[in-house]
């Protein structure tokens, strides 16, 4: 198999080859590093590439495996991290000028867990500055290029994570998601992106955007790969009081079953109200495919979900401004204009607004919980539109013109407000060749069912053999 072919395989596939000793972790890591060197100059997925460190870690993995000590499915697998995940001795910029030279003295828990599982860290990935935006446009490090169409947004804020995985520059990556920042770029770049339940994955050592809405999640080429990464990340962490003491199942096993007999809900409110026609057609076709696999579909009312948008706004801008206040007072000019303007907005949200939003959140979540007693999961679009042009400021859908950012987060941010697990799976291409994402939302801490549905759909999806034109410029 050629080095190029190796970089197109998923984590599960190369992991099997490594464990059988049919593939050397050093060979695989070198294949990725060479591809990064050749391809990332103008793709701009990486901020920092760790060539020497990665090769040394791969050599160590190879020795361990040769000695009969496999650490499991991630051992020897080259991955990369969004650059707000702290890495000891490796700069962590948060996609910002303010932290361009910051070198943490500790690892985030998720970085440590992946290293303990034997994953090889290739580098740190580009992102929307401080994770504060869904477009992925970055004025400091350049904007990562969507491999399906370089003139289109990659989605954000985990833009580099999506581009790196989609363009074959790492086998899998971690992103973070406060209003859709894993799922939006996953949908725009034709990938799988999982926002786990709030409290499922450790956030200690991840620079926050909004503490009560932030989630860490995997971005991969397949649902199985997302499950393998989640397995290494999930669980209680004494260093993170927001993590829950809930048993972690064996996801690879739990997601194997058929979906026959499951009931899937199609929400009547908000999510299907204003959609690009091609997105609507692809998501409804995906629902019918799942019905064809034996699931039943049911329309579900969620009248309170439309309040999630304003609640999310009040919470994000308040929490983000609270975190950034010291920098705003001393280094405001170093922020990009879009992020600084949003951070400035946060100072004008009243405490009453914030608390009302946090109280509303309980009611919205209770309604969603009630709906998820009737059905096993909900099916929604991940975004109402495919990836917009890089310079888009506003979009008009069904006669309504709004800021492009508002459109991008419309279907994802309500799920950050409720904290339920949500998976974005590719479900089709537009006539212009842009990927479309199906979003599957499950019960709290039931990532297994969400993954099971995603995996079942993946097997029949029109996207199952589709790849971006990787070597075109």
């Amino acid at each position: 198999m050629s080095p190029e072919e190796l970089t197109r395989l998923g984590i599960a596939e190369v992991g099997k080859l490594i464990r059988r000793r049919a593939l050397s972790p050093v060979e695989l890591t070198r294949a990725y590093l060479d591809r990064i060197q050749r391809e990332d100059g103008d793709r701009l997925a990486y901020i920092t590439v760790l060539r020497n460190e990665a090769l040394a870690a791969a050599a160590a993995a190879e020795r361990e495996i040769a000695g009969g000590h496999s650490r499991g499915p991630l051992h020897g697998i080259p991955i990369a991290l969004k650059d707000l995940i702290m890495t000891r001795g490796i700069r962590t910029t948060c996609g910002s000028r303010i932290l361009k030279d910051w070198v943490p003295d500790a690892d985030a828990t998720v970085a440590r867990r992946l290293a303990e599982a034997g994953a090889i860290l290739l580098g740190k990935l580009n992102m929307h500055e401080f994770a504060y935006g869904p477009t992925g446009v970055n004025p400091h490090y350049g904007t990562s290029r969507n491999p399906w169409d370089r003139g289109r947004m990659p989605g954000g804020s985990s833009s580099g994570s999506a581009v790196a995985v989609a363009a074959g520059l790492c086998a899998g990556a971690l992103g973070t998601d406060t209003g859709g920042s894993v799922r939006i770029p996953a949908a725009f770049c034709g990938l799988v992106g999982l926002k786990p339940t709030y409290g499922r994955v450790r956030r200690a050592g991840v620079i926050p955007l909004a503490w009560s809405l932030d989630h860490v999640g995997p971005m991969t080429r397949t649902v199985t790969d997302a499950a393998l990464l989640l397995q290494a990340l999930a669980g209680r962490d004494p260093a993170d009081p927001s993590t829950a003491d809930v048993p972690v199942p064996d996801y690879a096993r739990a997601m194997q079953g058929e979906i026959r007999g499951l009931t899937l809900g199609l929400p009547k409110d908000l999510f299907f109200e204003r959609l690009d026609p091609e997105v609507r057609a692809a998501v409804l076709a995906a629902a019918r495919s799942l019905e064809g696999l034996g699931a039943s579909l049911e329309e579900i009312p969620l009248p309170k979900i439309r309040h999630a948008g304003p609640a999310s706004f009040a919470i994000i801008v308040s929490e983000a401004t609270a975190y950034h206040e010291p920098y705003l007072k001393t280094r405001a000019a170093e922020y990009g204009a879009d992020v600084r303007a949003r951070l400035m907005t946060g100072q004008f949200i009243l405490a009453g607004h914030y608390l009302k939003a946090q109280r509303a959140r309980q009611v919205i979540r209770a309604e969603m919980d009630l709906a998820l007693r009737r059905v096993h999961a909900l099916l929604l679009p991940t975004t109402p539109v495919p990836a917009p042009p890089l310079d888009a400021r506003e979009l008009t859908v069904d006669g309504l013109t709004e800021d492009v950012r508002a459109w991008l987060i419309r279907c994802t941010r309500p799920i950050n407000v409720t904290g339920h697990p949500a998976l974005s799976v590719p479900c089709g291409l537009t006539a212009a060749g842009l990927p479309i994402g199906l979003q599957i939302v499950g019960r709290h801490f039931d990532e297994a069912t969400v993954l099971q549905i995603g995996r079942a759909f993946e097997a029949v999806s029109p996207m199952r053999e589709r790849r971006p034109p990787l070597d075109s410029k």
Partner: protein
Amino acid sequence: MAPISIHLLQALSQELSRIPTDPDDLANAASQLAAQLEGLGRLDDLDLSAVEPATVLLPPREVPYVS
């Protein structure tokens, strides 16, 4: 709804939060706030009378008595 005064935002910024601001950022903030205030007001449509905010601290775990 009346537009939000940039002078008001500037005064709040200077006197209360003490964050130095740029007029362009304040114009952007005024526009963002104006777009969201109606939705924030509609949160009153929800019955929140018996609802505590999601931010309340959980009580600490009971520590067993050690003699």
